[in-house]
């Protein structure tokens, strides 16, 4: 491929959301020549949509907060199968990462004494989310974007070239990673604008491509969320973990149909909004699960007092972790107590003055006014679950972000482990900053320690290029061609119906069959038109990734015969401690006769690394016994149950 554009960098960051930008800043600050590639324009990545806030135990609002409390909340939210080392690093480092944003120019909302204000969110013991109204993601991405520009200005002052060391390749999609001898050598992609191919040579690649929600019909996610990083990693030889865990956010818009799935921030509940069914009942009091008994208010009066006095009251069950709330809404609707459009009511209008609502939740006010003709200061919203976040992702080393492929790093939503079976709201933005930085650092160290750089081979470039252009080739004579839009719509409907919030063995098996059919049909997709900004072609390529990732999700969900967090099996409704210590790993064995377009994914169980003892000791044995098997707790300093102190160490 002599006509392809070639570029050489030390570090190639794929993704310009919070994780990618933070990784690039770190790599660039370590003196490495760094490229950032993203499918959208610079500053438009999915992170821009985050609303509620960024969790960090700064203790600005409640000084009892600490990394230990944040760590415990995160592990509880994930039902104890989070990678504990990631949860530890995250809880310890998040405050520094947020404060650092202020040095880049971020302007968070303030407390009375001028510090960063923090708000309540589900599953967090204290007001912990740094925020800017309900547009925190915008502040985060703009701040990082402007930091990148500042670094480019420094380079300009020194070299006369803004892009001497750090360049953004916007509207550019990576379709394949290139390796030599199993180590990363570079990547191939195309410019969306022109359709021209380009090849990067780089010994280190940081994947920061975000999530997979576009495989589902009802989702809060944007078109970018086609699981590219997950699939690129699989094809390059890395493993995914925890793919059965998909978070359905309890509150998405349900009406009108064209906006179904768009997110209604949890901040509405954090600031006082409550869920009600068609009978006007605050139903969440009926849904506090056994593992959380005693931690939430048991009457409306106590719940309402909590907003003003958190020391002496327990929080409202409206703020249970997301998996619990989503399942509760699902049940209310199924049992006939839903709203007219198949959701439930989220009421803030009766609980706060209109001006206060507009000040605290401006984009929610705007969103409902503009898109649904609903004035949230006067009437309740109708909401229901929407596919929101994937907990599963690329298996990485917690400290460096490196996958098992040398030179391949991952951070942010496309990396797995940090959130266990269920992510707490606000823990993603902080995850992006903490592990984005670590992956950038990991990549920098890796490149510095490298003797010889792996070389991109022409044969591999040719193969990747051919695969990228394949959708333009006509089908064999007599074979009808497929339309990528139709295939995508079928995949979304199928994943929603069969691999949604509530799952069964029969449904997972059916889903895998359907995925097999779709895989076959993808071969016959033919796109019209030419290569210049052609959305049909882009979708055809994205479908490869969506099918692989969907197979990983369905196959993992079939194997895990228990219910936990973002994975609910109707046929296996309980938590099973034997499953807590097991992790499901997805990989591509790439055997002979495998499909080259959508290689097969296999899922295998493995053991999780047991939690370090000093971290385990942060929990009360009585709580751990709800999740752990007895032999696993033999190492706990408090020994065995009965009468161990409430609450553990602060």
């Amino acid at each position, binding site marked *: 491929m002599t006509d392809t554009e070639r570029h050489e960098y030390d570090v190639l960051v794929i993704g310009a959301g919070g994780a990618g930008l933070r990784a690039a800043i770190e790599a660039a600050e370590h003196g490495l020549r760094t490229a950032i590639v993203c499918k*959208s*324009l*610079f*500053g*438009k990545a*999915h992170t*821009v*949509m985050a609303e509620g806030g960024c969790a960090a135990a*700064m203790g600005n609002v409640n000084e009892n907060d600490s990394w230990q409390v944040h760590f415990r909340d995160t592990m509880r939210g994930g039902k104890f199968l989070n990678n504990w080392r990631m949860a530890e690093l995250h809880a310890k480092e998040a405050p*520094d990462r947020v*404060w650092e944003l*202020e*040095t*880049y*120019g971020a*302007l968070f*909302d*303030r407390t009375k*004494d*001028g*510090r960063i*204000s923090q708000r309540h969110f589900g599953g967090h013991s204290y007001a912990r989310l740094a925020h*800017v*109204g309900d*547009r925190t993601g*915008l*502040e985060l991405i*703009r701040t990082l974007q*402007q*930091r990148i*520009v*500042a670094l480019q*200005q420094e380079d*300009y002052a020194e070299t006369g070239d803004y892009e001497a060391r750090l360049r953004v390749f916007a509207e550019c999609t990576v379709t394949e990673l290139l390796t030599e001898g199993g180590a990363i050598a570079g990547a191939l992609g195309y410019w969306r*604008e022109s359709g021209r191919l380009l090849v990067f040579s780089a010994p280190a690649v940081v994947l920061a491509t975000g999530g997979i929600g576009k495989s589902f019909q009802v989702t809060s996610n*944007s*078109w970018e969320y086609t699981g590219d990083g997950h699939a690129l990693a699989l094809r390059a030889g890395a493993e995914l973990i925890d793919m059965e865990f998909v978070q359905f956010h309890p509150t998405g818009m349900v*009406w*009108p*149909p*064209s*906006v179904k799935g*768009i*997110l209604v921030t949890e901040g509405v509940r954090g600031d006082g909004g409550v869920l009600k069914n068609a009978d006007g009942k605050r139903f969440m009091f009926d849904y506090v699960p056994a593992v959380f008994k005693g931690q939430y208010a048991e009457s409306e009066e106590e719940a309402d007092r909590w907003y003003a006095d958190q020391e002496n009251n327990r929080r409202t069950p409206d703020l249970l972790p997301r998996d619990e709330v989503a399942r509760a809404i699902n049940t209310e609707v199924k049992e006939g107590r839903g709203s007219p459009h198949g959701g439930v009511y989220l009421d803030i209008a009766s609980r706060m003055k209109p001006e206060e609502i507009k000040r605290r939740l401006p*984009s929610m006010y*705007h*969103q409902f006014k*503009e*898109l649904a003709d609903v004035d949230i200061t006067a009437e309740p919203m109708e909401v229901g679950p929407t596919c929101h976040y994937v907990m599963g992702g690329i298996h990485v080393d917690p400290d460096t972000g490196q996958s098992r492929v040398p030179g391949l790093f991952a951070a942010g939503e496309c990396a797995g482990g940090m959130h266990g079976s269920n992510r707490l709201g606000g823990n993603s933005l902080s995850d992006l900053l903490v592990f984005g930085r670590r992956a950038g650092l990991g990549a920098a160290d890796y490149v510095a320690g490298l003797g010889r750089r792996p070389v991109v081979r022409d044969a591999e470039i040719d193969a990747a290029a051919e695969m990228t252009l394949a959708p333009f080739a006509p089908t064999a004579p007599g074979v009808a061609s497929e*339309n*990528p*839009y139709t295939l995508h719509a079928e995949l979304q409907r199928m994943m929603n119906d069969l691999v949604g919030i509530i799952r069964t063995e029969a449904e997972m098996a059916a889903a895998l069959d359907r995925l097999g059919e779709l895989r076959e049909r993808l071969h016959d997709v033919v*796109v*019209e038109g*030419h290569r210049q*900004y*052609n*959305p*049909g*072609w882009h979708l055809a390529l994205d479908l490869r990734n969506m099918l692989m990732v969907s197979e990983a999700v369905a196959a993992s969900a079939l194997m895990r015969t228990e219910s936990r967090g973002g994975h609910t099996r109707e046929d296996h409704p309980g938590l099973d401690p034997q499953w807590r210590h097991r992790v499901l790993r997805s990989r591509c064995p790439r055997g002979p006769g495998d499909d080259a377009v959508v290689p097969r994914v296999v899922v295998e169980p493995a053991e999780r690394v047991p939690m370090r003892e000093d971290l385990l000791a942060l929990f009360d044995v009585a709580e751990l016994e709800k999740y752990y098997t007895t032999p696993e707790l033999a190492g706990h300093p408090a020994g065995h149950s009965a009468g161990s102190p409430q609450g553990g160490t602060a």
Partner: protein
Amino acid sequence: MSYTGQFRVWRGDADGGALADFRVEVNEGEVVLDVLHRLQATQAPDLAVRWNCKAGKCGSCSAEINGKPRLLCMTRMSVFEHDEVVTVTPMRTFPVIRDLVTDVSYNYTKAREIPSFTPPAGLAPGEYRMGQADVGRSQEFRKCIECFLCQDTCHVVRDHEENKESFAGPRFLMRIAELEMHPLDVADRVSAAQDEHGLGRCNITKCCTDVCPEGIKITDNALIPMKERVADRRYDPLVWLGRTISRRRD
């Protein structure tokens, strides 16, 4: 509740193009972007449209609807009569790439020319203290989703390619105001706003404010106060004296 809507969509590339007529299904509650997506899925699979969040948050889907700069994902079909022809064209101020997608690199070039946030020396991370009232002004400007509709509409550059070189446009003049009003920023961009970024060309017509989907009062809250700062500095003899002396010392 569904009906057949009439659409005219500009199709073409840098070499030229024309409006193409479509008849397409429209359903209750839809926005213009939904209808364009239906066109892609059923009649024009290679129709180029830039979008991302479909929730009014990313500022990708800017175009002109019946001649007005708007976000495609936030323009509801219910604002049109059923028999009204809805005409969708690309933003006029920026070069067309294809169909509704334009080359907005002008904006990224301008963004790079504005000196970045400069914190005070010696203030450690975590020690920043600012009152809500003091950050409020800049926060309004930071609501900007960079849709560039204000840039598209400003008559200084709309149909005036020759002015682009010397004019940052409302979005980036507002960025200067944002930094100048940041309680802790220590850099000075006031003179540069006038001399390098073209603040003087703005004659406060407020067209930018009118099209801003975030409802930011660009003219009143950013541009006019910046003009006042420039004026204060230019005509205040003491400031003038101070600047002259410091220049001689350099």
